[in-house]
Each structure stands twice: as C-alpha cells, then as structure tokens.
C-alpha cells in the first residue's frame, strides 16, 4: 500500500472572529494519492477553500494532523511543492504577462535561459501565445485567469491547487480549459486539488469528488469516479457520468437539510 501524498486525519479548524468562533472545518479525514485529481464541491461556507488553503499551508488547522508527503504543509510550501491558482488572477500590473509568469521562476532562481522556454511553453498551453508582451490590464478577465494558470504551471510544482479558477469564465472557454487541464494532468501526472461550484465540472475532471457541507464545514461524501482517464467532452452525456452527477447532487442536498 503506497503512502498518500496528502493525508488529513481529524482536521479541525476554528477561526476566532469578533462575532465569536467560527467552526470552518470539523473532523475532516481524507487521503489523496499521487496523481489523483480531487474536486471539492459544496455551497459557500462549507470550508472547501479553507481546506485547500490548509493543504497549501496558508491556514493552520487547530486540530488533527495534516501531512503532505510526510511533511507539514508549511514545510511543503517552503520546499515549493505547490502551484496555486486563486479565484482572481492577481497578476502584477507592472509586469507583462511573460513577466508575471517569470515571477515564481525568479523567486526560485531558475536559470535565465530556462525561464524564456518555460514561459513560451505554458503560454502555449493556456492558449495565450503571442500575448507575453501585453500587460494584464490590456487583457480580458478570462485571459488574465488563463495567464495566472500559466504562472502556476511554470515551475512544475508537484501539487497543483486551484480555487474556483474558472468561475469567472464563459462556458466555452471553461470547457476548453477543462480539457486542457485534463491533458495537462495526463501529461504530468500531477496531483491536483480543485475547488468548484459546478457539478459537471467536478464530475468531468475528477478521479475523486469530495462533497462538503457548511456549519460546521465537513465532508459528507467522497465519490471515487469510475470514469476512464481519457475523457472526451462527450462523456458528459453517458449514463455513468449522469449517475455520478446525481450522487453529487444528492450529497449536496443532504448537506443542505441539516
């Protein structure tokens, strides 16, 4: 039995706010193996983003244990294990698109020649070829978000964490990027954590779907997807796909009734 990359045992997180403590995560148990594509789905306030931030070492659980490759999330973060894509693109307006993608490479001291090659590669990957010299504010919101994905891909982190990255994009671009992400995942065998509101997106992308519900934030269902790794967009019309989507929806409803 191989060891999971991400191992959460009884993870608890309570935020102290001015309105009293908020129980953001309660008794979260989850194992994620290398190369898995895990989606976190649930209504606002279910702690899906908070859990992703815990994995990245951006929040610290107040109870339980959480390890990444046997390290604490903090240690894993410092050893640069994560590429993180946020809800907003967060590109630096004083840098060009290429400059923004180079940012993590500069911080991690990549050789200069390697940088340009990597920038070209990831720009191509997110379909932004030829936009390297533009400034972020010269691009549409969707293009900015694609550039921020390119930035997260540039340094080949082992784990890619994406927090509703396509929430602001239109359906067609979203489909295309979903396909791209799957291709990328197949090519690199990265472990991916993906937060989303969309049931089809979660089912289409994932090998494992984690259904969460709020107050307190907790896991209500973990669904192992039987879908094959190779997934054309048409797979969304197959009975297997629809069945999983149903189960996710049921899980979300059950969580809401509490």
């Amino acid at each position, binding site marked *: 039995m191989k060891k999971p990359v991400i191992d959460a045992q009884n993870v608890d997180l309570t935020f102290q706010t001015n309105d009293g403590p908020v129980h953001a995560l309660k008794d979260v148990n989850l194992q994620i193996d290398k190369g898995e594509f895990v989606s976190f789905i649930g209504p606002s306030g279910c702690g899906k983003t908070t859990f992703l931030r815990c994995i990245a*070492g951006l929040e610290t659980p107040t109870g339980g244990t959480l390890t990444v490759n046997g390290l604490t999330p903090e240690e894993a973060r410092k050893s640069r294990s994560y590429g993180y894509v*946020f809800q907003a693109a967060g590109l630096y*307006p004083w840098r060009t698109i290429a400059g923004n993608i180079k940012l993590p490479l500069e911080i991690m001291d990549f050789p200069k020649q390697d940088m340009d090659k990597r920038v070209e590669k990831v720009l191509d990957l997110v379909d932004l070829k030829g936009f390297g010299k533009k*400034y972020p504010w010269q691009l549409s919101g969707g293009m900015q978000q694609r550039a921020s994905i390119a930035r997260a891909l540039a340094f080949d982190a082992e784990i890619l964490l994406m927090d509703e990255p396509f929430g602001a994009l239109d359906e067609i671009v979203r489909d295309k990027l979903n396909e791209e992400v799957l291709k990328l995942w197949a090519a690199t065998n990265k472990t991916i954590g993906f937060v989303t509101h969309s049931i089809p997106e979660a089912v289409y992308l994932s090998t494992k779907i984690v259904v969460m519900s709020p107050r307190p934030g907790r896991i209500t269902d973990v669904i192992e997807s039987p879908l094959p790794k190779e997934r054309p967009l048409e797979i969304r019309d197959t009975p297997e796909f629809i069945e999983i989507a149903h189960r996710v929806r049921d899980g979300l409803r059950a969580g809401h009734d509490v």
Partner: protein
Amino acid sequence: MRPDTTFEKIAWPLGFGLLVLVLWEVVVRVFGVSPAILPPPTAIGAAMAGSLPILWEDWVQTVVKGALNGLWMGTLAALILALIIDRFDFLKRGLMPVANFFAALPIVGLAPIMVMWFGFDWQSKAAVVAIMVFFPMLVNILGGLAAVDPMQRDLMRTYGATHVQTLHKLRGPAALPFLFNGLKIATSLALIGAIVAEYFGSPIRGMGFRITTEMGRLATDMVWAEIVVSAVTGTALYGLVAGIEKRVTFWHPSQRG
C-alpha cells in the same frame, strides 16, 4: 467635445495668466496704488531682470542647498524607518503613535532651535526641511507597503518567497504610487520650510533672507521677484515629480489614461 491639442493646452492658461497680469498692471496704475503695497508686474519684471545674479545666488542657497538636501535626507530617513517599522510589528504599535505626535507639531517652530544646533548656513534649513518632509513620507510609504491585497501576499507565500523577495517583487512596486503622492506633498513642504527657516537667521543670501530684508526696506518689487522665483521652482519640482511618476507607475489606474 474635441480634445484640446497641445498648442491649446498651453495657450489657454497662458492667455488667462497674461490677462491677469494686464489687469493687475492697469488696476495698480489707474488707482495709483503705492508700490510698497503692490508693485505693478512690470516693476517686478524689471527687478528680476536687474538682479539676476542675486536671484540665482539666493536660489542656489535656498532651493539647492536647503530644500533639496533636506528633501533627500528626510525622504531617505523616512524610507529606512518605514522598512524597519514594517519588518517588526512591535515598532508599528510603539513607534507610530509617537510619530503621529511629532507629525502634529508645527515644525516650522523648530527652526530657531535648528539654527542654534546647526548654525546659520543651509545645514539648519536642510534640517528643518528634513523633519518637515519626514512624516508625510513615512506615513505614505507605510501606507503603500500595507496596500497589497492578501491574495497577492498568499501567492508569494506559495512560492516560499522570503521577506526581502516579497518586498522587492511585490510590495515595493505596489508602494510606488503612494511614495510619489508623498513626494508631491513633500516638494512643496520643502520649499516652504527652506524659505521660512531663513526668517530665523541666515547668512546674507537666500530667498527667505531676501524677502525679510527687502520687506524691511519696503522694496516690495524684490520681495515679489523672490516669490515669483519660488512659485516657478515649486511648479517645476512638482512637474518633475509628476513626470517621473508617470513613467515609473505607468501601470497604475490613475496613470493609464
């Protein structure tokens, strides 16, 4: 409406300025206003043309030696202290209230003390200017360093970036618009400080010195000549800072145009 051409942008204010000067001249002559109260623009112009070497000497003494030296010293000191305060949280809590107290002092009142400490020459004026520009610069730089949104800091954390890397790549550039806002305030404060500080004692040159002594002789045309020079200098310094700002922070929404 069609936007103004460059020629029109210059011609309009220039025309209005000339109009004001002509009215001034006419009013002074028609009503026979005493030159001690208000000299006509032509008299001021004649005084300027006749005393260029003196105006130049005063300008070097007050602007270059007093104001500009004080400006860079005060700005540099504010920058260094801002970086230190930003690094250590306890300083933010302990030092900021003290700094705010000092910022509320009428600093020009310190001028006689500075003259006593640093002598009559430009050093005491630079000291007054440095103290005057220090607080607005400190407040602006600290504000700028705090202006980065949490998501961008988180991004740097996911890269495992060090404090210095975050400062250099993210918070420094993000603070530049604030720094320039501070500089624009500081340039006008520097001129005021350097001129007023000379009222409390100076060698026999300098714009503030000239204003007080010529006023004593009721030679108001020379007083006005110095005021014209200081106004032109203030505008030019402001324009210079604004011009550099436009180049350096071209990416900021206020500069994209």
